[in-house]
Protein backbone atom coordinates (compact mmCIF):
# COMPACT_ATOMS: atom_id res chain seq x y z
CA UNK A 1 0.00 0.00 0.00
CA UNK A 2 1.14 3.54 -0.71
CA UNK A 3 2.13 5.33 2.46
CA UNK A 4 3.57 8.67 3.46
CA UNK A 5 7.30 8.43 4.17
CA UNK A 6 9.54 11.14 5.53
CA UNK A 7 13.24 11.68 4.89
CA UNK A 8 14.54 14.22 7.38
CA UNK A 9 17.63 14.74 5.22
CA UNK A 10 15.56 16.88 2.87
CA UNK A 11 13.22 18.50 5.36
CA UNK A 12 13.62 22.28 5.30
CA UNK A 13 11.52 22.95 8.39
CA UNK A 14 9.34 25.23 6.28
CA UNK A 15 6.24 23.84 7.98
CA UNK A 16 4.31 23.95 4.71
CA UNK A 17 3.13 20.39 5.30
CA UNK A 18 1.28 21.52 8.40
CA UNK A 19 -0.41 24.37 6.61
CA UNK A 20 -1.28 22.31 3.56
CA UNK A 21 -2.72 19.64 5.83
CA UNK A 22 -4.76 22.17 7.76
CA UNK A 23 -6.02 23.67 4.51
CA UNK A 24 -6.83 20.33 2.92
CA UNK A 25 -8.89 19.35 5.96
CA UNK A 26 -10.55 22.74 6.33
CA UNK A 27 -13.10 22.05 3.63
CA UNK A 28 -12.43 25.55 2.28
CA UNK A 29 -11.50 26.34 -1.31
CA UNK A 30 -9.22 29.25 -0.53
CA UNK A 31 -6.23 28.82 1.75
CA UNK A 32 -6.17 32.41 2.93
CA UNK A 33 -9.85 32.22 3.79
CA UNK A 34 -9.31 28.91 5.56
CA UNK A 35 -6.24 29.76 7.61
CA UNK A 36 -6.10 33.51 8.07
CA UNK A 37 -5.93 34.31 11.81
CA UNK A 38 -6.48 30.62 12.58
CA UNK A 39 -4.30 28.58 14.90
CA UNK A 40 -3.87 25.52 12.76
CA UNK A 41 -4.35 22.05 14.17
CA UNK A 42 -2.92 19.76 11.48
CA UNK A 43 -2.75 15.97 11.41
CA UNK A 44 0.90 16.18 10.40
CA UNK A 45 3.23 17.84 12.87
CA UNK A 46 6.81 18.91 12.41
CA UNK A 47 9.47 18.09 14.96
CA UNK A 48 12.08 20.79 14.62
CA UNK A 49 15.03 21.47 16.90
CA UNK A 50 16.53 24.17 14.72
CA UNK A 51 18.97 21.75 13.11
CA UNK A 52 17.01 18.59 12.46
CA UNK A 53 13.39 18.56 11.43
CA UNK A 54 10.88 16.07 10.11
CA UNK A 55 7.16 15.71 9.70
CA UNK A 56 5.25 13.11 11.68
CA UNK A 57 1.84 11.81 10.76
CA UNK A 58 0.01 8.50 11.08
CA UNK A 59 2.15 5.64 9.75
CA UNK A 60 -0.95 3.56 9.04
CA UNK A 61 0.61 0.56 10.77
CA UNK A 62 -0.13 -2.85 9.34
CA UNK A 63 -0.80 -4.05 12.91
CA UNK A 64 -2.37 -0.89 14.35
CA UNK A 65 -2.38 -0.88 18.12
CA UNK A 66 -4.61 2.20 18.19
CA UNK A 67 -7.39 0.25 16.47
CA UNK A 68 -7.00 -2.66 18.89
CA UNK A 69 -7.03 -0.34 21.87
CA UNK A 70 -9.91 1.87 20.83
CA UNK A 71 -12.67 1.43 23.45
CA UNK A 72 -15.50 2.41 21.13
CA UNK A 73 -14.57 0.85 17.80
CA UNK A 74 -14.28 4.35 16.33
CA UNK A 75 -10.85 3.58 14.93
CA UNK A 76 -10.91 1.06 12.10
CA UNK A 77 -8.48 -0.41 9.62
CA UNK A 78 -10.12 0.30 6.26
CA UNK A 79 -8.05 -1.69 3.81
CA UNK A 80 -4.82 -0.37 5.28
CA UNK A 81 -5.98 3.17 5.93
CA UNK A 82 -6.59 3.77 9.63
CA UNK A 83 -9.75 5.85 9.92
CA UNK A 84 -11.56 7.45 12.83
CA UNK A 85 -15.32 7.64 13.10
CA UNK A 86 -15.77 10.91 15.00
CA UNK A 87 -19.40 10.09 15.63
CA UNK A 88 -18.41 7.09 17.73
CA UNK A 89 -15.32 8.57 19.35
CA UNK A 90 -15.84 9.77 22.93
CA UNK A 91 -12.40 11.35 23.28
CA UNK A 92 -11.02 8.93 25.87
CA UNK A 93 -7.57 9.35 24.26
CA UNK A 94 -6.60 5.68 24.62
CA UNK A 95 -5.24 5.94 21.06
CA UNK A 96 -2.93 8.74 22.21
CA UNK A 97 -1.90 6.47 25.08
CA UNK A 98 -0.76 3.73 22.69
CA UNK A 99 0.38 5.37 19.43
CA UNK A 100 4.18 4.90 19.38
CA UNK A 101 4.61 7.80 16.95
CA UNK A 102 2.47 10.32 18.79
CA UNK A 103 0.60 10.74 15.54
CA UNK A 104 -2.93 10.95 16.95
CA UNK A 105 -4.03 14.33 18.23
CA UNK A 106 -7.16 15.68 19.92
CA UNK A 107 -9.51 17.65 17.69
CA UNK A 108 -9.59 21.39 18.45
CA UNK A 109 -12.52 21.13 20.89
CA UNK A 110 -10.92 18.12 22.59
CA UNK A 111 -14.10 16.02 22.58
CA UNK A 112 -12.85 13.62 19.87
CA UNK A 113 -9.52 12.79 18.25
CA UNK A 114 -8.32 13.41 14.72
CA UNK A 115 -5.69 11.74 12.56
CA UNK A 116 -4.29 11.55 9.06
CA UNK A 117 -6.44 9.54 6.69
CA UNK A 118 -4.08 10.15 3.73
CA UNK A 119 -6.42 12.87 2.46
CA UNK A 120 -8.90 10.22 1.33
CA UNK A 121 -11.44 12.01 3.47
CA UNK A 122 -11.02 15.43 1.84
CA UNK A 123 -10.80 17.03 -1.61
CA UNK A 124 -7.02 16.96 -1.85
CA UNK A 125 -6.86 13.63 -3.66
CA UNK A 126 -3.30 12.68 -2.77
CA UNK A 127 -1.87 13.65 0.62
CA UNK A 128 -1.61 17.44 0.75
CA UNK A 129 1.57 17.33 2.84
CA UNK A 130 3.28 15.38 0.06
CA UNK A 131 1.90 17.52 -2.75
CA UNK A 132 3.06 20.68 -1.05
CA UNK A 133 6.52 19.54 0.08
CA UNK A 134 9.01 21.73 -1.79
CA UNK A 135 11.96 19.38 -1.43
CA UNK A 136 10.72 15.82 -1.71
CA UNK A 137 11.17 15.30 2.03
CA UNK A 138 7.71 13.76 2.27
CA UNK A 139 6.79 11.18 -0.34
CA UNK A 140 3.76 9.03 -0.98
CA UNK A 141 4.81 5.66 -2.33
CA UNK A 142 4.81 1.86 -2.13
CA UNK A 143 7.64 0.43 -0.02
Amino acid sequence: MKRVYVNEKWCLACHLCEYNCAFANSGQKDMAKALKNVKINPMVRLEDNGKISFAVSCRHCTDPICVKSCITGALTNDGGIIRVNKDKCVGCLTCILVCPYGAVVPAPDGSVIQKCELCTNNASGEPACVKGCPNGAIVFEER
Partner: protein
Amino acid sequence: MPINYNVPEYAVVRDPDRCIACRVCERQCANEVHSYDPELNKMRSDETKCVNCHRCVALCPTHALKIVKNPDTFRINGLWDNETISDIYRQADTGGALLSSMGNPKKYPIYWDKILINASQVTNPSIDPLREPMETLTFLGKHPHTIERGENGEIKTDNLPPQLKLNVPIMFSAMSYGAISYNAHESLARAARELGTYYNTGEGGLHEDFYKYGPNTIVQVASGRFGVHKDYLNAGAAIEIKIGQGAKPGIGGHLTGAKIVGDISRTRMIPEGTEAISPAPHHDIYSIEDLRQLVYSLKEATDYKKPVIVKIAAVHNVAAIASGIARSGADIIAIDGFRGGTGAAPKRIRDNVGIPIELALAAVDERLRQEKIRNSVSIVAGGGIRNSADVLKAIALGADAVYIGTAALIALGCHLCRTCQTGRCNWGIATQRPDLVKRLNPDVGCGRLVNLVSAWQHEIMEMMGGMGINSIESLRGNRLMLRGVGLNEKELEILGIKHAGE
Protein backbone atom coordinates in the same frame (compact mmCIF):
# COMPACT_ATOMS: atom_id res chain seq x y z
CA MET B 1 26.09 56.18 11.68
CA PRO B 2 26.94 57.30 8.13
CA ILE B 3 24.19 58.14 5.68
CA ASN B 4 23.12 55.28 3.46
CA TYR B 5 22.92 56.99 0.11
CA ASN B 6 21.33 54.03 -1.62
CA VAL B 7 17.71 53.03 -1.78
CA PRO B 8 16.56 49.40 -1.70
CA GLU B 9 16.53 47.96 -5.22
CA TYR B 10 13.33 46.00 -4.68
CA ALA B 11 10.11 46.35 -2.77
CA VAL B 12 8.40 43.42 -1.05
CA VAL B 13 4.67 43.63 -1.69
CA ARG B 14 2.64 41.51 0.71
CA ASP B 15 -1.10 41.12 0.19
CA PRO B 16 -2.56 41.42 3.69
CA ASP B 17 -5.73 39.62 2.64
CA ARG B 18 -3.72 36.61 1.54
CA CYS B 19 -0.93 36.43 4.07
CA ILE B 20 -1.75 33.84 6.75
CA ALA B 21 1.46 34.54 8.68
CA CYS B 22 2.65 30.95 8.23
CA ARG B 23 6.20 32.38 8.32
CA VAL B 24 7.49 30.25 5.47
CA CYS B 25 9.01 33.39 3.94
CA GLU B 26 10.79 34.15 7.19
CA ARG B 27 12.15 30.62 7.54
CA GLN B 28 13.28 30.45 3.91
CA CYS B 29 15.01 33.82 3.56
CA ALA B 30 18.71 33.55 4.34
CA ASN B 31 18.94 37.30 3.89
CA GLU B 32 16.53 37.77 6.77
CA VAL B 33 14.21 40.08 4.91
CA HIS B 34 11.05 38.74 6.54
CA SER B 35 10.20 38.71 10.21
CA TYR B 36 7.13 37.96 12.30
CA ASP B 37 5.52 40.40 14.69
CA PRO B 38 3.72 38.28 17.31
CA GLU B 39 1.83 41.22 18.82
CA LEU B 40 0.21 42.16 15.54
CA ASN B 41 0.33 38.59 14.21
CA LYS B 42 1.75 40.15 11.05
CA MET B 43 4.77 39.60 8.81
CA ARG B 44 7.19 42.46 8.30
CA SER B 45 9.98 42.94 5.76
CA ASP B 46 13.34 44.70 5.62
CA GLU B 47 13.69 45.47 1.94
CA THR B 48 17.27 46.70 2.17
CA LYS B 49 18.28 43.03 2.42
CA CYS B 50 16.17 41.70 -0.45
CA VAL B 51 18.11 40.43 -3.48
CA ASN B 52 14.97 39.33 -5.35
CA CYS B 53 15.82 35.63 -5.43
CA HIS B 54 12.10 34.81 -5.30
CA ARG B 55 12.50 31.98 -2.79
CA CYS B 56 9.77 33.47 -0.60
CA VAL B 57 7.53 34.17 -3.56
CA ALA B 58 7.90 30.61 -4.81
CA LEU B 59 7.15 29.05 -1.43
CA CYS B 60 4.39 31.34 -0.21
CA PRO B 61 1.41 28.97 -0.07
CA THR B 62 -1.16 31.73 -0.56
CA HIS B 63 0.76 33.69 -3.23
CA ALA B 64 0.63 36.69 -0.95
CA LEU B 65 4.09 37.94 -1.98
CA LYS B 66 5.39 39.98 -4.90
CA ILE B 67 8.86 41.41 -5.30
CA VAL B 68 8.79 44.50 -7.49
CA LYS B 69 11.37 46.98 -8.66
CA ASN B 70 11.42 49.71 -6.06
CA PRO B 71 9.59 52.57 -7.77
CA ASP B 72 11.67 54.97 -5.68
CA THR B 73 14.20 56.48 -8.06
CA PHE B 74 16.91 59.09 -8.22
CA ARG B 75 16.19 61.97 -10.52
CA ILE B 76 15.73 60.44 -13.98
CA ASN B 77 18.80 60.94 -16.13
CA GLY B 78 19.60 59.28 -19.42
CA LEU B 79 23.30 59.13 -18.69
CA TRP B 80 23.32 58.72 -14.92
CA ASP B 81 20.80 55.98 -14.35
CA ASN B 82 20.02 54.52 -10.93
CA GLU B 83 22.49 51.66 -11.16
CA THR B 84 25.33 53.92 -12.23
CA ILE B 85 24.69 56.28 -9.35
CA SER B 86 24.24 53.47 -6.82
CA ASP B 87 27.52 51.91 -7.90
CA ILE B 88 29.28 55.19 -7.22
CA TYR B 89 27.68 55.48 -3.79
CA ARG B 90 28.69 51.92 -3.00
CA GLN B 91 32.29 52.48 -4.06
CA ALA B 92 32.38 55.77 -2.21
CA ASP B 93 31.23 53.85 0.86
CA THR B 94 33.65 50.97 0.59
CA GLY B 95 36.54 52.03 -1.63
CA GLY B 96 36.42 48.56 -3.18
CA ALA B 97 35.90 47.01 -6.59
CA LEU B 98 32.28 46.02 -7.11
CA LEU B 99 31.70 42.31 -6.96
CA SER B 100 28.85 40.52 -8.69
CA SER B 101 28.10 37.17 -10.25
CA MET B 102 26.43 35.18 -13.03
CA GLY B 103 26.66 36.50 -16.61
CA ASN B 104 26.84 39.91 -18.20
CA PRO B 105 23.34 41.38 -17.77
CA LYS B 106 23.86 44.43 -19.99
CA LYS B 107 21.90 45.22 -23.13
CA TYR B 108 24.46 44.07 -25.70
CA PRO B 109 23.07 42.60 -28.92
CA ILE B 110 21.97 38.98 -28.62
CA TYR B 111 22.82 37.57 -32.05
CA TRP B 112 20.90 34.36 -31.43
CA ASP B 113 17.76 36.47 -31.59
CA LYS B 114 18.78 37.97 -34.92
CA ILE B 115 19.29 34.59 -36.58
CA LEU B 116 16.41 32.59 -38.07
CA ILE B 117 16.22 28.91 -38.94
CA ASN B 118 15.17 27.38 -42.26
CA ALA B 119 12.51 24.76 -42.98
CA SER B 120 11.64 22.56 -45.96
CA GLN B 121 8.79 23.40 -48.29
CA VAL B 122 7.75 21.44 -51.42
CA THR B 123 11.16 20.91 -53.02
CA ASN B 124 12.27 18.52 -50.32
CA PRO B 125 10.34 16.90 -47.51
CA SER B 126 10.54 17.73 -43.85
CA ILE B 127 10.99 14.67 -41.64
CA ASP B 128 8.72 13.72 -38.78
CA PRO B 129 10.86 12.82 -35.76
CA LEU B 130 7.98 10.79 -34.40
CA ARG B 131 8.07 8.51 -37.44
CA GLU B 132 11.68 8.54 -38.59
CA PRO B 133 14.96 8.21 -36.70
CA MET B 134 16.31 11.62 -35.70
CA GLU B 135 19.93 11.43 -34.62
CA THR B 136 21.60 13.71 -32.09
CA LEU B 137 24.52 11.43 -31.22
CA THR B 138 27.75 13.41 -31.34
CA PHE B 139 31.42 12.48 -31.00
CA LEU B 140 33.98 15.01 -29.83
CA GLY B 141 37.68 14.60 -30.55
CA LYS B 142 40.41 14.53 -33.15
CA HIS B 143 40.24 12.60 -36.40
CA PRO B 144 43.20 10.92 -38.08
CA HIS B 145 44.10 12.14 -41.57
CA THR B 146 44.47 8.79 -43.26
CA ILE B 147 42.52 5.58 -43.38
CA GLU B 148 44.70 2.62 -42.49
CA ARG B 149 43.96 -0.90 -43.66
CA GLY B 150 44.92 -4.33 -42.34
CA GLU B 151 46.67 -6.97 -44.44
CA ASN B 152 43.38 -8.25 -45.87
CA GLY B 153 42.24 -4.74 -46.70
CA GLU B 154 39.80 -4.15 -43.86
CA ILE B 155 39.69 -0.65 -42.40
CA LYS B 156 41.57 -0.30 -39.12
CA THR B 157 39.30 1.21 -36.51
CA ASP B 158 41.79 1.46 -33.67
CA ASN B 159 43.69 4.53 -34.89
CA LEU B 160 41.04 6.91 -33.59
CA PRO B 161 42.22 9.23 -30.80
CA PRO B 162 40.10 9.20 -27.60
CA GLN B 163 36.63 10.61 -28.12
CA LEU B 164 33.69 11.82 -26.05
CA LYS B 165 30.35 10.32 -27.00
CA LEU B 166 27.30 12.53 -26.37
CA ASN B 167 23.73 11.30 -26.86
CA VAL B 168 22.78 14.93 -27.19
CA PRO B 169 25.25 17.72 -28.05
CA ILE B 170 24.67 19.51 -24.75
CA MET B 171 27.08 19.33 -21.81
CA PHE B 172 27.03 20.98 -18.39
CA SER B 173 29.80 23.54 -18.19
CA ALA B 174 32.41 23.89 -15.51
CA MET B 175 31.13 24.90 -12.08
CA SER B 176 33.41 24.11 -9.20
CA TYR B 177 32.50 22.32 -6.00
CA GLY B 178 32.84 25.25 -3.65
CA ALA B 179 31.33 27.75 -6.03
CA ILE B 180 28.26 25.53 -6.10
CA SER B 181 27.07 23.05 -3.54
CA TYR B 182 27.56 19.34 -3.12
CA ASN B 183 23.92 18.74 -3.98
CA ALA B 184 24.17 20.91 -7.10
CA HIS B 185 27.16 18.83 -8.21
CA GLU B 186 25.39 15.58 -7.49
CA SER B 187 22.38 16.77 -9.48
CA LEU B 188 24.57 17.64 -12.46
CA ALA B 189 26.56 14.41 -12.26
CA ARG B 190 23.52 12.19 -12.05
CA ALA B 191 21.74 14.07 -14.83
CA ALA B 192 24.81 13.79 -17.07
CA ARG B 193 24.88 10.05 -16.52
CA GLU B 194 21.17 9.65 -17.17
CA LEU B 195 21.35 11.79 -20.32
CA GLY B 196 24.48 10.18 -21.70
CA THR B 197 26.45 13.41 -21.67
CA TYR B 198 29.01 15.11 -19.43
CA TYR B 199 29.29 17.53 -16.57
CA ASN B 200 32.43 19.44 -15.62
CA THR B 201 34.07 19.58 -12.21
CA GLY B 202 35.30 23.10 -12.65
CA GLU B 203 38.51 23.94 -10.86
CA GLY B 204 37.52 22.73 -7.42
CA GLY B 205 38.58 19.12 -7.73
CA LEU B 206 36.33 16.06 -7.64
CA HIS B 207 34.61 15.04 -4.41
CA GLU B 208 35.40 11.44 -3.52
CA ASP B 209 31.69 10.59 -3.59
CA PHE B 210 31.50 11.56 -7.26
CA TYR B 211 34.29 9.41 -8.67
CA LYS B 212 31.58 6.92 -9.55
CA TYR B 213 30.26 9.39 -12.13
CA GLY B 214 33.73 9.50 -13.76
CA PRO B 215 32.59 8.16 -17.16
CA ASN B 216 30.34 11.22 -17.44
CA THR B 217 32.75 13.69 -15.89
CA ILE B 218 35.13 16.22 -17.40
CA VAL B 219 37.84 17.10 -14.89
CA GLN B 220 39.20 20.60 -15.10
CA VAL B 221 42.75 21.81 -14.62
CA ALA B 222 42.81 25.54 -13.93
CA SER B 223 45.46 28.00 -12.91
CA GLY B 224 44.99 27.24 -9.22
CA ARG B 225 45.44 23.49 -9.86
CA PHE B 226 43.12 22.80 -6.92
CA GLY B 227 42.50 19.12 -6.30
CA VAL B 228 44.59 18.04 -9.27
CA HIS B 229 46.39 14.72 -8.93
CA LYS B 230 46.92 11.62 -11.05
CA ASP B 231 43.80 9.78 -9.88
CA TYR B 232 41.75 12.91 -10.44
CA LEU B 233 43.02 13.23 -14.00
CA ASN B 234 42.29 9.59 -14.67
CA ALA B 235 38.90 9.66 -12.95
CA GLY B 236 37.17 11.62 -15.70
CA ALA B 237 36.36 10.94 -19.35
CA ALA B 238 38.23 14.04 -20.47
CA ILE B 239 40.47 16.76 -19.09
CA GLU B 240 39.78 20.44 -19.57
CA ILE B 241 42.51 23.04 -19.28
CA LYS B 242 40.79 26.25 -18.29
CA ILE B 243 42.65 29.23 -19.68
CA GLY B 244 39.81 31.64 -19.21
CA GLN B 245 36.09 31.99 -18.75
CA GLY B 246 33.60 34.30 -20.44
CA ALA B 247 32.43 36.03 -17.29
CA LYS B 248 35.88 37.32 -16.40
CA PRO B 249 38.41 36.94 -19.21
CA GLY B 250 41.96 37.70 -18.20
CA ILE B 251 41.51 37.38 -14.48
CA GLY B 252 41.62 34.47 -12.07
CA GLY B 253 39.26 33.29 -9.43
CA HIS B 254 38.94 33.77 -5.71
CA LEU B 255 36.98 31.51 -3.38
CA THR B 256 37.00 33.09 0.06
CA GLY B 257 38.47 31.18 2.99
CA ALA B 258 35.02 31.13 4.57
CA LYS B 259 33.93 28.67 1.91
CA ILE B 260 37.01 26.47 2.23
CA VAL B 261 35.59 24.17 4.86
CA GLY B 262 35.37 20.42 5.41
CA ASP B 263 34.95 18.46 2.22
CA ILE B 264 35.75 21.49 0.08
CA SER B 265 39.15 21.96 1.64
CA ARG B 266 39.81 18.22 1.35
CA THR B 267 38.63 18.11 -2.28
CA ARG B 268 40.68 21.17 -3.22
CA MET B 269 43.59 19.84 -1.22
CA ILE B 270 44.16 23.12 0.60
CA PRO B 271 43.93 23.83 4.35
CA GLU B 272 40.59 24.92 5.81
CA GLY B 273 40.04 28.64 5.80
CA THR B 274 42.75 29.50 3.28
CA GLU B 275 41.79 31.80 0.43
CA ALA B 276 41.55 29.74 -2.77
CA ILE B 277 43.12 32.05 -5.31
CA SER B 278 43.39 31.03 -8.95
CA PRO B 279 46.03 33.21 -10.62
CA ALA B 280 45.02 35.16 -13.72
CA PRO B 281 47.36 33.16 -15.97
CA HIS B 282 48.64 29.63 -15.57
CA HIS B 283 52.13 30.35 -14.36
CA ASP B 284 53.45 27.52 -16.51
CA ILE B 285 51.74 28.89 -19.61
CA TYR B 286 53.07 32.21 -20.79
CA SER B 287 52.88 31.26 -24.44
CA ILE B 288 51.25 28.85 -26.87
CA GLU B 289 54.20 26.45 -26.87
CA ASP B 290 53.83 26.19 -23.10
CA LEU B 291 50.23 25.18 -23.63
CA ARG B 292 51.37 22.38 -25.93
CA GLN B 293 53.61 21.13 -23.15
CA LEU B 294 50.79 21.10 -20.61
CA VAL B 295 48.46 19.36 -23.06
CA TYR B 296 50.99 16.62 -23.61
CA SER B 297 51.99 16.26 -19.98
CA LEU B 298 48.31 15.70 -19.20
CA LYS B 299 48.08 13.17 -22.03
CA GLU B 300 51.18 11.45 -20.67
CA ALA B 301 49.66 11.36 -17.19
CA THR B 302 46.57 9.69 -18.59
CA ASP B 303 48.28 7.38 -21.05
CA TYR B 304 46.75 9.19 -24.06
CA LYS B 305 43.38 7.73 -23.14
CA LYS B 306 41.58 11.02 -22.43
CA PRO B 307 40.79 13.81 -24.87
CA VAL B 308 42.09 17.17 -23.73
CA ILE B 309 39.85 20.23 -23.91
CA VAL B 310 41.26 23.74 -23.85
CA LYS B 311 38.74 26.31 -22.69
CA ILE B 312 39.19 29.97 -23.48
CA ALA B 313 37.12 33.08 -23.08
CA ALA B 314 35.86 34.66 -26.30
CA VAL B 315 38.15 37.63 -26.78
CA HIS B 316 39.01 39.84 -29.73
CA ASN B 317 41.44 37.62 -31.59
CA VAL B 318 39.77 34.40 -30.55
CA ALA B 319 40.06 32.88 -34.04
CA ALA B 320 43.84 33.11 -34.13
CA ILE B 321 44.09 31.83 -30.56
CA ALA B 322 41.85 28.89 -31.41
CA SER B 323 43.97 27.97 -34.38
CA GLY B 324 47.00 27.99 -32.11
CA ILE B 325 45.19 25.72 -29.66
CA ALA B 326 44.09 23.37 -32.46
CA ARG B 327 47.76 22.93 -33.31
CA SER B 328 48.76 22.46 -29.67
CA GLY B 329 47.55 18.90 -29.58
CA ALA B 330 44.23 19.73 -27.92
CA ASP B 331 41.36 17.49 -29.02
CA ILE B 332 38.58 19.93 -28.25
CA ILE B 333 38.39 23.72 -28.00
CA ALA B 334 35.78 25.21 -25.67
CA ILE B 335 34.91 28.85 -26.28
CA ASP B 336 33.10 30.76 -23.56
CA GLY B 337 31.18 33.85 -24.64
CA PHE B 338 31.03 37.05 -22.61
CA ARG B 339 27.62 36.16 -21.25
CA GLY B 340 28.94 33.12 -19.43
CA GLY B 341 28.13 32.93 -15.75
CA THR B 342 30.32 32.82 -12.67
CA GLY B 343 30.06 32.49 -8.91
CA ALA B 344 31.84 35.79 -8.45
CA ALA B 345 33.44 38.37 -10.73
CA PRO B 346 34.40 42.02 -10.61
CA LYS B 347 31.33 43.71 -12.01
CA ARG B 348 33.20 45.95 -14.45
CA ILE B 349 35.02 43.03 -15.99
CA ARG B 350 31.92 40.91 -16.22
CA ASP B 351 30.07 43.72 -17.95
CA ASN B 352 32.78 44.99 -20.28
CA VAL B 353 35.30 42.32 -21.25
CA GLY B 354 35.01 39.71 -23.97
CA ILE B 355 32.87 39.28 -27.09
CA PRO B 356 29.60 37.51 -27.93
CA ILE B 357 29.85 33.75 -28.42
CA GLU B 358 27.92 33.88 -31.71
CA LEU B 359 30.60 35.98 -33.40
CA ALA B 360 33.48 34.17 -31.72
CA LEU B 361 32.13 30.77 -32.73
CA ALA B 362 31.54 31.78 -36.34
CA ALA B 363 34.99 33.32 -36.60
CA VAL B 364 36.73 30.30 -35.07
CA ASP B 365 34.89 27.74 -37.17
CA GLU B 366 35.60 29.65 -40.36
CA ARG B 367 39.23 30.24 -39.48
CA LEU B 368 39.85 26.57 -38.70
CA ARG B 369 38.27 25.62 -42.02
CA GLN B 370 40.40 28.13 -43.88
CA GLU B 371 43.41 26.55 -42.21
CA LYS B 372 42.03 23.11 -43.11
CA ILE B 373 42.25 21.92 -39.49
CA ARG B 374 38.59 22.05 -38.53
CA ASN B 375 38.36 18.28 -38.80
CA SER B 376 41.23 17.68 -36.40
CA VAL B 377 39.58 19.43 -33.46
CA SER B 378 36.07 19.75 -32.07
CA ILE B 379 34.48 23.01 -30.99
CA VAL B 380 32.28 23.43 -27.93
CA ALA B 381 30.48 26.75 -27.56
CA GLY B 382 29.20 28.13 -24.29
CA GLY B 383 28.30 31.34 -22.54
CA GLY B 384 24.75 32.47 -23.10
CA ILE B 385 23.06 29.39 -24.54
CA ARG B 386 19.48 29.86 -23.35
CA ASN B 387 17.31 27.36 -25.21
CA SER B 388 17.19 24.64 -27.85
CA ALA B 389 17.09 27.17 -30.69
CA ASP B 390 20.35 28.70 -29.45
CA VAL B 391 21.84 25.20 -29.42
CA LEU B 392 20.68 24.49 -32.94
CA LYS B 393 21.95 27.84 -34.22
CA ALA B 394 25.31 27.29 -32.52
CA ILE B 395 25.69 23.92 -34.22
CA ALA B 396 24.65 25.33 -37.60
CA LEU B 397 27.25 28.05 -37.11
CA GLY B 398 29.86 25.35 -36.65
CA ALA B 399 29.89 24.09 -33.05
CA ASP B 400 30.08 20.34 -32.42
CA ALA B 401 28.35 20.73 -29.07
CA VAL B 402 27.48 23.34 -26.49
CA TYR B 403 28.09 23.90 -22.80
CA ILE B 404 25.20 25.10 -20.67
CA GLY B 405 25.77 26.47 -17.17
CA THR B 406 23.34 29.22 -16.31
CA ALA B 407 20.44 27.40 -17.98
CA ALA B 408 21.23 24.32 -15.91
CA LEU B 409 21.34 26.34 -12.70
CA ILE B 410 18.04 27.99 -13.56
CA ALA B 411 16.58 24.52 -13.99
CA LEU B 412 17.82 23.81 -10.46
CA GLY B 413 15.99 26.86 -9.16
CA CYS B 414 18.47 29.72 -9.65
CA HIS B 415 16.62 33.01 -10.13
CA LEU B 416 19.63 34.97 -11.33
CA CYS B 417 19.66 37.30 -8.35
CA ARG B 418 23.39 37.61 -9.04
CA THR B 419 24.53 37.46 -5.44
CA CYS B 420 26.27 34.08 -5.48
CA GLN B 421 29.31 35.79 -4.01
CA THR B 422 27.47 36.29 -0.71
CA GLY B 423 27.21 32.52 -0.18
CA ARG B 424 23.60 32.88 0.97
CA CYS B 425 21.95 31.22 -1.99
CA ASN B 426 18.40 30.55 -0.92
CA TRP B 427 18.09 27.84 -3.57
CA GLY B 428 20.91 25.73 -2.14
CA ILE B 429 23.05 26.14 -5.26
CA ALA B 430 25.79 28.72 -4.72
CA THR B 431 26.25 28.17 -1.02
CA GLN B 432 27.99 25.90 1.47
CA ARG B 433 25.69 26.58 4.41
CA PRO B 434 24.33 23.12 5.29
CA ASP B 435 20.83 24.42 6.02
CA LEU B 436 20.76 26.05 2.58
CA VAL B 437 22.54 23.26 0.70
CA LYS B 438 19.89 20.75 1.82
CA ARG B 439 17.26 22.81 0.00
CA LEU B 440 18.44 21.24 -3.25
CA ASN B 441 17.43 17.59 -3.19
CA PRO B 442 19.45 15.90 -5.96
CA ASP B 443 16.53 13.58 -6.69
CA VAL B 444 14.55 16.66 -7.60
CA GLY B 445 17.49 18.52 -9.16
CA CYS B 446 18.60 15.61 -11.35
CA GLY B 447 15.05 15.09 -12.54
CA ARG B 448 14.67 18.73 -13.51
CA LEU B 449 17.96 18.76 -15.42
CA VAL B 450 17.05 15.58 -17.27
CA ASN B 451 13.68 17.10 -18.12
CA LEU B 452 15.26 20.29 -19.41
CA VAL B 453 17.81 18.64 -21.68
CA SER B 454 15.32 16.03 -22.89
CA ALA B 455 12.89 18.80 -23.77
CA TRP B 456 15.60 20.67 -25.65
CA GLN B 457 16.62 17.51 -27.47
CA HIS B 458 13.03 16.99 -28.52
CA GLU B 459 12.77 20.54 -29.80
CA ILE B 460 16.07 20.22 -31.64
CA MET B 461 14.76 17.09 -33.34
CA GLU B 462 11.58 18.91 -34.35
CA MET B 463 13.56 21.77 -35.89
CA MET B 464 15.99 19.40 -37.61
CA GLY B 465 13.07 17.45 -39.02
CA GLY B 466 11.61 20.68 -40.32
CA MET B 467 14.83 21.31 -42.20
CA GLY B 468 14.79 17.81 -43.64
CA ILE B 469 17.89 16.91 -41.64
CA ASN B 470 17.79 13.66 -39.68
CA SER B 471 21.27 13.64 -38.23
CA ILE B 472 22.93 16.35 -36.19
CA GLU B 473 26.24 16.13 -38.07
CA SER B 474 24.50 17.29 -41.22
CA LEU B 475 23.55 20.43 -39.34
CA ARG B 476 27.04 21.18 -38.07
CA GLY B 477 28.41 24.21 -39.89
CA ASN B 478 25.40 24.12 -42.19
CA ARG B 479 25.08 27.89 -42.23
CA LEU B 480 22.77 27.91 -45.25
CA MET B 481 20.12 26.82 -42.75
CA LEU B 482 20.47 30.21 -41.05
CA ARG B 483 19.44 33.69 -42.08
CA GLY B 484 20.05 37.00 -40.33
CA VAL B 485 17.51 39.69 -39.57
CA GLY B 486 18.45 43.28 -38.81
CA LEU B 487 22.14 42.58 -39.05
CA ASN B 488 24.58 44.74 -40.96
CA GLU B 489 26.87 43.51 -43.73
CA LYS B 490 29.79 43.10 -41.38
CA GLU B 491 27.86 41.06 -38.87
CA LEU B 492 26.49 38.85 -41.63
CA GLU B 493 29.97 38.43 -43.03
CA ILE B 494 31.42 37.38 -39.68
CA LEU B 495 28.52 35.05 -38.99
CA GLY B 496 28.89 33.71 -42.53
CA ILE B 497 25.17 33.80 -43.14
CA LYS B 498 22.88 35.53 -45.63
CA HIS B 499 20.22 38.01 -44.67
CA ALA B 500 16.64 36.80 -44.53
CA GLY B 501 15.15 37.17 -48.02
CA GLU B 502 18.41 36.44 -49.82
